[in-house]
């Protein structure tokens, strides 16, 4: 814990480097994007530095609204799935012996080394009609004939969750492994069954960690633009796909910038609301 605020230039030196990095690589690019979002597109060219809010006015179309809503929905849905599966999974991993824990974590981290391209194509093959899992089910006699599950909503969900799951576990691992093992035991001596213990004490005492993980996975999956194009149909394309399309293929940087800024504002508002909701109850939030 830091007792007093640092005073003078020397005390601030250690923070200057990260502050400068943050400014150069995040604040300045964002400032440029914010500026560009108010510029005019020059058809066939780049853009001119004339102030205009047309880009923002053009956002209010049915298409943009639908894609924005879907992007937020699919990210929130995947975040919820990942945390719902990842929290009990991580809990059981942290209760294992040290060696077994290391094996599980290494497997998960190695999944991170796969690029989104490989993951997307692997899923599209696995869910295809010609070589996919459905052939296996036909062979086992569970299905009559092989079908194609990709592209589609569930294929997209699978791909996004696959990418996000290792992050979910890695973010949940530290708070769960720090959980006092006597807390669940105390709940049991007080009469709570193992299932009740899990929900009232393990989930309850780690609620802020769960909210933080939800936000992290949500923000992380919002940015995927490759997986929706491979595993989703056009109606499943997220706003990230639309922005890429606008910026790169249609060379409309001001409009792409305006979409990005608006998207970010909406996401930040949602994150803020989630944090408020997570903080509302319970006395011991820190």
């Amino acid at each position, binding site marked *: 814990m830091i007792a007093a605020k640092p005073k003078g230039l020397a005390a601030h030196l250690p923070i200057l480097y990260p502050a400068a990095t943050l400014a150069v690589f995040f604040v300045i690019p964002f400032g440029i994007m914010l500026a560009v979002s108010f510029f005019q597109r020059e058809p066939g060219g780049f853009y001119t530095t004339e102030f205009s809010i047309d880009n923002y006015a053009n956002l209010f179309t049915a298409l943009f609204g639908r894609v924005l809503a879907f992007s937020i929905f699919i990210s929130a849905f995947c975040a919820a799935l990942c945390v719902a599966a990842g929290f009990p999974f991580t809990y059981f991993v942290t209760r294992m012996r040290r060696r077994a824990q290391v094996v599980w974590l290494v497997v998960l981290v190695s999944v991170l080394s796969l690029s989104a391209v490989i993951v997307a194509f692997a899923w599209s093959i696995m869910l295809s009609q010609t070589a996919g899992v459905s052939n296996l089910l036909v062979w086992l006699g569970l299905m009559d004939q092989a079908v194609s599950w990709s592209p589609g909503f569930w294929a997209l969900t699978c791909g996004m969750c696959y990418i996000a799951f290792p992050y979910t576990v890695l973010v949940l691992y530290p708070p769960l492994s720090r959980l006092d093992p006597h807390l669940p035991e105390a709940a049991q001596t007080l009469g709570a069954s193992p299932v009740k213990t899990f929900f009232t004490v393990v989930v309850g005492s780690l609620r802020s960690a769960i909210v933080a993980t939800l936000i992290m996975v949500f923000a992380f999956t919002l940015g995927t633009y490759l997986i929706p194009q491979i595993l989703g149909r056009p109606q499943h394309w997220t706003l990230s796909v639309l922005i890429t399309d606008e910026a790169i293929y249609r060379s409309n940087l001001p409009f792409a910038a305006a979409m990005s800024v608006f998207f970010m504002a909406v996401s930040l508002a949602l994150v803020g609301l989630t944090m408020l909701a997570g903080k509302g109850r319970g006395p*011991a939030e820190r």
Partner: protein
Amino acid sequence: MAGLDLKDIHKRFGPVTAVQNVDLHIPHGRFVCFLGPSGCGKTTLLRLIAGLEQPTAGRVLLEDQDITFQPAHQRNFGMVFQSLALFPHLTVGENIAYSLRIRKKSAADCRRRVEALLDLVRLPGYAGRAVAQLSGGQRQRVAIARALAIEPRLFLLDEPLSALDAKLREDMQLELRMLQQRLGITTILVTHDQREAMTMSDLIVVMGTDNQVHQMGSPLEIYRHPADTFVADFIGTSNLLKGVCGGGRQVAVSGRTLNVETLPAGVTTGTEVSISVRPEDISVVAGVREGENHLQGRVAFVRDVGSSVEIYLDCNGFQIVSQSTPKSRPAVRQGDAATAVLPPSACVVLGA
């Protein structure tokens, strides 16, 4: 028999033996301490009783009912953990009411019970506080109140006072003991502090580093008549003299002969034995004296701490510690010749 019975309990964790050969009867309504050095298996034994571990062999009976494999959450015991394990996301009141809410008690019932328990542990009006706002002693009381909320059949405490500073610990010992007497609830406390065990318990179970029970008895019985050298050494301070049993009630110690009052069964002439004598039973007189159980030596060190005086006497090959009050302090100084007098009734003979 009413009470808790442990029948031939063994517990192994892989190759490590945590507890072995434990046969105990704990009578209803008593305060019992499991006392032993760290690693003796006393906490494991408590966890076996709580149902948080299952024994490798043996049975646990409560009021003649076999509860060995009953899950912990069906036992209706109250337990206070060493780390206290208060739920950080709940208020003091919610912590105490946790077991009542699990049992689907009404909100009004819960509130009444929480208030009664907070009065009992002398924290009235604390129900709405966050656990993080409490001091160590207050958390202690909340953990006790939480464990008592369902009127448990057994009250189990795993070194709950070890994190408190010495002064507060002594206060809590008295308070906990008086609370137990008022409620008449069968209580088991695990501790490595023999003073704490002596203060609080009706019965002490002494466990050793061999993971077995060495002796069970009242505090004074264990202090006055230790069953073996381990107990004599672990409980309080003791002078342990190695010797060989001569004829009759005599033991030869380093070329001198001590008279004793009783010999344990199985000790005959020629048996190697140890004699345990408590320091406060030994008196020291100045100069060289002769007589029954008089051991002559030289004063090696005098520790005068005000309330008591300890004299360390070198007696050719072994050392003897005596303790006396300032009033009966003998007139000796370091280096003086002196004689220790050991009353035969205070010499407890133990199998070596």
